[in-house]
């Protein structure tokens, strides 16, 4: 009996082949010029461009793109690697800035019920705002489309980190805090040696949610501000009616999002502990 993993892999591959096969069949060009309706004859036959490309075409394109991902042939023609790198750079910059604020403020809110009560109303109002709603204001104030996209990432990734940090810190077991107190640790030492490791799994969960949201939002943000990035690339290829490129870049968005999530998942494993 093969192991569960092997059987699962075999099943996965069969699903893939089945799906690609169905897709390929559904997108075959119709038999040329037989049985055209009057309307189609008037329109000059079935237009090639308006059909979804078959997987073989997407794979061919993917091969070409991935064999030279970093070419740069002017503003509207850059390799997929360059576009993804722009997006990842924006996401990481906004995300790190959010972290630099969310973690200390989350600690403060988590440790001080006074600060929690004072800041909670603002958090509750700001949190449900769609990050893209900030875009016009950001563009007006910052006057720079790249920085505005980064700001939008910052604002959307700050909330899960902030709230999870505050929650994790506020719910550290009183017993462990008492251990710190009976050993006369100062507030800073207590925060670093007891509260941070105790709350780390909760904090990392927040960080993982944030990176996922940031990657969702960057595509939309780049469609709005244009210029560079994977979101711009998708929209640009749609305007060119190059559907094979659109499908290919959708897949790449998925792959990069998965890699980001995997990285945070690894970090989460590192700080986990069993009681």
């Amino acid at each position: 009996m093969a192991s569960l993993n092997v059987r699962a892999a075999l099943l996965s591959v069969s699903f893939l082949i089945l799906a690609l096969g169905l897709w390929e069949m559904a997108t075959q060009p119709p038999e040329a010029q037989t049985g055209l309706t009057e309307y189609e004859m008037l329109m000059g036959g079935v237009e090639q461009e308006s059909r979804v490309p078959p997987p073989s075409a997407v794979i061919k394109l993917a091969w070409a793109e991935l064999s030279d991902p970093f070419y740069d042939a002017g503003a509207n023609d850059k390799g997929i690697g360059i576009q993804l790198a722009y997006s990842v750079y924006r996401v990481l910059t906004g995300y790190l800035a959010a972290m630099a604020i969310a973690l200390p403020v989350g600690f403060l809110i988590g440790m001080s019920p006074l600060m929690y009560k004072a800041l909670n109303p603002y958090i509750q109002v700001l949190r449900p705002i769609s990050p893209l709603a900030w875009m016009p204001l950001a563009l007006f104030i910052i006057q720079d489309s790249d920085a505005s996209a980064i700001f939008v990432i910052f604002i959307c990734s700050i909330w899960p980190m902030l709230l999870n940090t505050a929650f994790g810190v506020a719910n550290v077991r009183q017993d462990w805090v008492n251990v710190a107190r009976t050993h006369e640790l100062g507030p800073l030492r207590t925060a670093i040696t007891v509260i941070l490791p105790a709350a780390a799994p909760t904090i990392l969960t927040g960080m993982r949610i944030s990176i996922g949201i940031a990657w969702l939002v960057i595509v939309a943000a780049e469609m709005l501000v244009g210029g560079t990035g994977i979101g711009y690339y998708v929209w640009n290829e749609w305007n060119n009616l190059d559907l094979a490129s659109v499908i290919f870049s959708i897949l790449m968005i998925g792959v990069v999002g998965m890699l980001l999530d995997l990285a945070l998942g690894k970090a989460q494993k590192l700080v986990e502990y069993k009681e």
Partner: protein
Amino acid sequence: MSKPFLEVDGLSKVYPDGQGGELTVFEDIRFALEKGEFVCIIGHSGCGKSTILNVLAGLDEASAGNVVMNGKEIKGPGLERGVVFQNYSLLPWKTTLNNIVFAVRARWPEWSKEKVKEHSERYLKMVGLDHALNRKPSQLSGGMRQRVSIARAFATQPELLLLDEPFGALDALTRGVIQDELVKIWEETRQTVFMITHDVDEAILLSDRIFLMSNGPNARIAESVKVDIPHPRARATIFQNPAYHKTRDYLVDFLVNRSGSALPEKDGTPKIVEPAKGAARSTPASAESDTESESETAARAVNA
């Protein structure tokens, strides 16, 4: 008269009763501990033993009264008082060794890394855990965790050790083994210990004196019972001492019949009782009775 090592004076704790009134859990608690004494406190559940211990630890505040140790009033927790919590309270992300290192480093920040490690390992060895240095608490049994917790408290060499039902969650066999270990460490270090227990036999085995608390609300420490059995004691032989039975009968009678109505002296200090006064003081130790008693203890532990 010289001042005692630790003096508790008129301690009381009042909570709101939830209906606008007040509930006095205990009141006018007065007692003193001498340096090197091992004192247990026994009383029915809810009378406020843990609260008293937490006040001594500085983790809780009394509603009235004060505690003076070494001539200084206790305000807040401190390293000169070590606490063993009922639920062990080990830091689960640290290994066994690092849990002790954490405490030792807090106690002597000026020590070198090697010295801290060596000191920590010595105390883990005392409780027989030198083989589990690099395991996390989640990989230890309840008994092993409590040993780590005891090692942590002793390793910082506090002037006063506070133990809140340290063996409450353990099965009878494990409890017996760790009691023996505690006796051994205490014989070596002769630290001052204040311990809560529900187990009369455990109290007699370990303590010089046993405080008996009356039932709450308005609980008091009514009596201070002297345990007149010489050290070193051993779990396997202690009940051959006639003083053991007299003391035990006295404690059980208090808990069953008198804990509802017992009162301390007029001045608020506990009544001093010596139930075994005049009983034979030496422990017979013939080889025969030794083996007999050992199997008997084992049988009792299994049946418990």
